[in-house]
């Protein structure tokens, strides 16, 4: 990792946006993903703009619109925040599901949402695939056991974030800051399928960065279920985020979002419908089975279909009285 970058401690959001407008500039949160990419030789920023030096950008606070979590809030602090967990249990669970304790002590929510994919071909400097501006996807005829069953290419990454599907389920809004000022958008709109933009999973204009995420508390019941191959440390093989409202034995409102199976957090409208029209107990089968409707597995990853169903079933069952 020898790229001769210049390091900047941003003091304000405005300053960060100005610095990030420089050619080859990248934002640094916890550094977990950025340093990894630099060491793997697939990223060589000319400027690194530290966002953690911006006072207050790591704040976790309750507002009249719900919870506002600054971009540099640590995943550990989100997971450990007792009041936030009361209002948004699924969000706390998703933060706690990330990687390992040390990485959660370093990783920020902004970095988690804007982390880059783990696809082996993307991460290996030796391959020039469509995500890196090259041609085609070597995984289509290659090693794709952990890749997407949804999304239809031309790149088949799965979005690696645990928090993103949960925040989509919770209908969170992202607050972005750029050289032209601030804007906000539903987090679901932040992510783009490869068919629209194969180079990047999210939409940030030059110089823009995530400043905060706001999560409404309108969906008081939520959970995040992550299935790993190795429990100590793994990205999701399949994950399910559910947020909704429960009245007695059934959901009156429900949003079901899958993780680890598509290039973006993958909302399953059919699972949601099945969840709403049954009691919770009766919804387990139809909702989990329908969650994979439309999945088109690759040569090695059909096993992710039962895995996804299991994640959904488990997530729904967690709302049943014990």
């Amino acid at each position, binding site marked *: *990792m*020898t790229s001769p970058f210049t390091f900047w401690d941003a003091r304000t959001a405005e300053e960060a946006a100005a610095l990030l407008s420089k050619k080859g500039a990248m934002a640094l949160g916890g550094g977990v993903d950025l340093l990894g990419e630099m060491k793997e030789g697939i990223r060589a920023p000319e400027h690194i703009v530290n966002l953690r030096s911006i006072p207050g950008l790591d704040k976790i606070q309750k507002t009249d619109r719900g919870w506002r979590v600054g971009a540099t809030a640590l995943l550990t602090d989100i997971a450990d925040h007792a009041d936030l967990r009361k209002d948004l249990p699924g969000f706390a669970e998703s933060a706690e599901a990330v990687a390992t304790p040390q990485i959660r002590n370093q990783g920020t929510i902004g970095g988690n949402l804007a982390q880059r994919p*783990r696809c*082996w*071909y993307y991460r*290996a400097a*030796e*391959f020039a695939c469509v995500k890196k501006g090259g041609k085609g996807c*070597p995984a289509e*005829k*290659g*090693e794709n*056991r952990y890749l997407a069953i949804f999304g239809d290419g031309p790149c088949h990454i799965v979005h690696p974030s645990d928090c993103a599907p949960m925040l989509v389920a919770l209908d969170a809004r992202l607050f972005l800051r750029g050289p032209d000022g601030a804007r906000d958008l539903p987090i679901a709109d932040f992510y783009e399928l490869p068919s629209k933009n194969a180079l990047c999973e999210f939409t940030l204009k030059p110089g823009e960065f995530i400043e905060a995420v706001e999560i409404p508390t309108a969906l008081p019941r939520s959970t995040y279920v992550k*299935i790993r*191959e*190795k*429990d*100590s*440390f*793994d*990205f999701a*093989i399949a994950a399910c985020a559910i947020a909704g409202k429960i009245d007695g034995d059934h959901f009156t409102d429900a949003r079901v979002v899958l993780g680890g199976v598509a290039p973006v957090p993958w909302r399953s409208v059919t699972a949601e419908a099945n969840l709403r029209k049954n009691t919770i107990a009766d919804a387990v089968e139809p909702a989990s089975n329908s969650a994979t409707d439309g999945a088109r597995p690759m040569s090695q990853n*059909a*096993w992710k*279909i*039962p*895995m996804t*169903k*299991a*994640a959904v*079933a*488990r997530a729904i069952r967690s709302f049943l009285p014990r």
Partner: protein
Amino acid sequence: MAKRTLRVGYPGNYREIEVDSPDAEPAPWDADSKLAVVGKRSPRLEGADKVTGKAKYTADVKLQGMLVARVLRSPYARATARSIGLAKALKMPGVKAAIEVEKEARYHGQAIAAVAAETEAQAEDAVAAIEVDWAVGEHVVDVEAARKPNAPRVHGGKNPNERGGEAQNTATEEACVTALKKSHATVDITFTTPVVTHSCLESHGSVARWESDGSLTVWDSTQSIFGVRDGLARGFQLPAEKVRVVKEHMGGGFGSKLGMGQHSMIAARLAREAKAPVKLMLTRKEEHLAGGNRPSSVQRVRAGADKDGKLTCLWLQSHGTGGINGGANCAGPLMSLYNCPVRRLWHADVITNASPAAAFRAPGHVQGMFALESTMDELAGKLGLDPIEFRKRNDQNEMRQAEYGEGAKMAGWEARAHLPNSGGRHKARGLGVSASIWGGGGAPGAQARCVISRDGAVEIQCGTQDIGTGTRTIIAMIAAEELGLKPEQVLVKLGDTTLPFSHGSGGSMTAPSVTPAVRAATAAARGRVFEACAKSLKADADNLTAKGGNVVAKGGASIPWAEACSKIAGANVSEQATRAQNFRGYKDGTAGCQFAEVEVDLETGHVQVLRVVAVHDCGRVVNPLLAESQINGGIIQGLSYALLEQRILDDATGRMMNANFSDYRIAGPKEIPEISVVLFDVSNGRTNTGVMGIGEPPIVPTPAAIANAVAHAIGKRITDLPITPDKILAALGKK
């Protein structure tokens, strides 16, 4: 040679045998020996250094003017460098040397060229500046593809990639067919196992320094300091004594650091070129790409048994790949564990464009035992026999027979049919068993020197190496036992080729090879102390003993150890001994067995190992704390192999895709079962200490025991390691 009568065997089953032991050696320890130090739990002597960060590993060596080296590795599985341009790299800032290593690349990650620079960053930049004109060739990494007649020839020429044939001393094909036909129950199953990497936490690496007299000093992360020394001496055409290899502490080897690695040669070549010391430590990615691996296997096993549950035939046809190397044979357990009248083996090593295999903790046995013991459970099922009962009927090793009894009790084998589980209809539990088998008797030739000074200080010098197993500590314990001292009163010098010779630390050989030499040298030096102090005690030297920190005469008179040593004429006494041949003792191998209890998540296919009961013997246990640690470690590596690890190569390019620690999964803290270790005490009368190795045995049965437990839990057998969730889901018919 002296004839000595020893009591050998294990509790409940002792017998007397007569052995010939060298006259100069102390009387061998046997079942009746009452020992004060040996056999007690004793923390590692270097524990304080390891918990404070003081312990120095090769990566921590820092020399005056030392340069850092980096290696250019082939991005192709098969390519020829038409030219390797070093000129640009040599002109880069800080670069002091650049060398060509190899033009023919036969695997992804093969070293092609290397540079040494003042800093790591400069070396990395310089490697990137090396200009290679590649002619990319055709590769083959898939084992089955490599066997085909039209496959690209990995080593060129006309030699086929498949190199194998029938083993000797086996039955004919016809005899097998007849035996199987006559059998009451038969199975025919094909098992496969993956290539796995050693994944030592400390990578391979060397620091090389040329001295002003033309000699070479190398600090190396190695299991074999003398092996590295001899390799370097050959490489540079130097007399062996002109090369000194030092290794104080090492972060894991597991077989991958036996013998000289290419990195040592590269570091020394660069150091000579740059006229400065050079450090070369491999990165994690390089470690996966070129640090060694356990070969894969495809094993078709046909086996039969008669109505009485006796094996009638064991037939194995296997092949596997160790990349550009051979070494994939894994028939050891099948050929040796059970009594069977008809046995036949055919094996082929398949050469592929993948990185070379290296010895890996119980080479061959881990793969082979998985296939054999899975087969035994399937046969037991067909015969309607309890798996342990079936094993016992075919196993003549009385130690293992007894070990099954102890293990079954602890594992709750009787309740096997009614295991509870934690998740209702979504979970299933199973309990499985596997035998173990290994040698571990050590080898002659290891040397040790004991130096006792006038002030009572004791130093043991032995050119072995402590690879983390606790060799330092057990050497001190053996010497302390002989001298009536405490282990911490013995200074152990090892890990340096200027010390008396010892073997590489592989094959579970270190403890059984080194301890007899240490004991003999110490006893001889003690004899010299006795001679020196006998007069003060008004006794014959022959009537003195050393115990409790004193030298004690038969009549009861005693003087403190230090006082006894003060009678030494001159500065010290020094005695050296060489480890003798093994005596014809009780048993020449180790047995052992393990039980694994697993819980399978029927929705996700996830396997959690809940408990492992491990019963192992290793002759005399010098230090139970260390022996248990070896067993725990072997079990976890076996678990990791059974459930998680596999090297994945991209077929189209031959590149390794998961050369890190997130995509190459190694068991972590949350994968760990409860482990109960039973050290089965055996007095084997094979050497003057009766110590056997325990490094390898505990990994041998674990994957098979887990696989058998999974089969018991879900009623389906997974024959392909690792047992990942996709395979369980497929076996359960989940779509």
